[in-house]
């Protein structure tokens, strides 16, 4: 069946796009010529920027705002020392409080892509407190940013004919009319395994579409990211969840960098949590030992502590 609302919108959006581009070209011919000579499409400047950030973060040449309470990034020996201190403190403090306090001291006040040494320090911190092998870079892959805003997403249809009523108990966000980036999770209801139920329940959305090499490294990247496990940490309260990447987005112009399923968002911040700052790191789990869902790391040491709601 023809999707008339979408077709109508597409047609008008394309015309608007052409009109805006032509107007820019006519008004600023020197700028148009500049981008032509540089071989860059202004419409794809985000990918160019992501490429520069990636290279700069690796070589440490970016002029990043310093982390809170620190004028300089730590040296590797400082990282080791701080983690050792952490181990000593852990005996006395609630792990979640320790995580929150350390995140405060490592993360910058303003959300931005992190430098590699900041990410390394966070990897150590997370491993030590939650015992999850989280990595900002895994097998050479890295997201455009590992620190950003997460927004609430809808449930995804898992098989043809799936409806919202099958996704209890969180119905408020609804079910997306379209499919996730990797289509249905199963061909039919009968083929939906417990594992796939969990994959949709605890799903994350990341901006694969803005990766600088997304188009040029297909189908490898598409397969690599499909259901890739990530650790999401709410940087305000330390609540953490293991999720699988099952959709691509959100659009860059929404002010968000990641998305979370209704279950993920509920666990990260409670029923009213719609947007907040998080860290997202890949999980190095070749043997598939890390389960999807909440990371109840307080229970590793103190069984009576409950997670904090915001």
């Amino acid at each position, binding site marked *: 069946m023809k999707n008339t609302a979408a077709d109508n*919108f597409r047609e008008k*959006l394309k015309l608007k796009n052409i009109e805006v581009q032509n107007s820019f070209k006519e008004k600023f011919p020197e700028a148009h010529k500049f981008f032509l000579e540089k071989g860059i499409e202004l419409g794809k400047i985000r990918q160019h920027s992501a490429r520069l950030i990636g290279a700069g973060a690796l070589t440490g040449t970016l002029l990043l705002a310093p982390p809170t309470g620190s004028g300089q990034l730590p040296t590797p020996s400082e990282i080791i020392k701080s983690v050792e201190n952490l181990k000593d403190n852990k005996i006395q403090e609630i792990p979640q409080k320790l995580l929150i306090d350390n995140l405060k001291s490592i993360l910058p006040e303003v959300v931005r892509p992190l430098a590699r040494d900041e990410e390394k320090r966070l990897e150590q911190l997370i491993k030590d407190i939650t015992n999850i092998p989280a990595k900002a870079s895994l097998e050479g892959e890295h997201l455009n940013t590992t620190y950003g805003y997460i927004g609430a997403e809808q449930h995804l249809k898992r098989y043809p004919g799936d409806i919202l009523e099958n996704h209890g108990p969180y119905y408020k966000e609804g079910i997306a009319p*379209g499919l996730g980036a990797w289509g249905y999770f199963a061909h039919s209801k009968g083929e939906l395994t417990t594992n796939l139920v969990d994959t949709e329940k605890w799903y994350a959305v990341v901006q694969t579409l803005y990766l600088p090499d997304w188009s040029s490294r297909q189908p490898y990247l598409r397969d690599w990211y499909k259901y890739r496990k990530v650790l999401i940490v709410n940087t305000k309260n330390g609540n953490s969840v293991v999720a699988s990447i099952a959709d691509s987005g959100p*659009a860059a*112009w929404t*002010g968000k960098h990641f998305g979370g399923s209704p279950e993920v968002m509920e666990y990260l911040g409670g029923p009213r949590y719609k947007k907040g700052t998080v860290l997202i790191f890949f999980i190095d789990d070749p043997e598939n030992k890390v389960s999807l869902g909440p990371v109840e790391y307080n229970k590793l040491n103190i069984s009576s502590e409950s997670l904090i709601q915001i």
Partner: protein
Amino acid sequence: MSILFFDKLVVLDKIDRKIKKISSSNEERQEFWQLVEEIIHHKVLGCCLDNLPSEHHCEFLEKFHNAPYDEKLLEYLDEKTKKDMKKIIKEEMKLLTKDLFLLDSHKMKPIL
């Protein structure tokens, strides 16, 4: 630092909700997102160049090309234009949101 220096000034949530509502597939949704993204980049850069005296255009374009993520570009623009460019870009985005919304209003006038 954002991915683009103006990212924090551009939030078009309502358009995104509209796109999610009408898209039937992930490909369609991403196609719409990219079209909107291209419009935004041209609008924002046009807005910057509109307000920036022409003698600074070359320097600004070089700076933008070398570090599109650098939020210091806003300080540069404020200094050279002697205007509050954050405010101006936000206003431009409000107008764009209205424009894009009107695109989708297919209410027809009754034929008399």
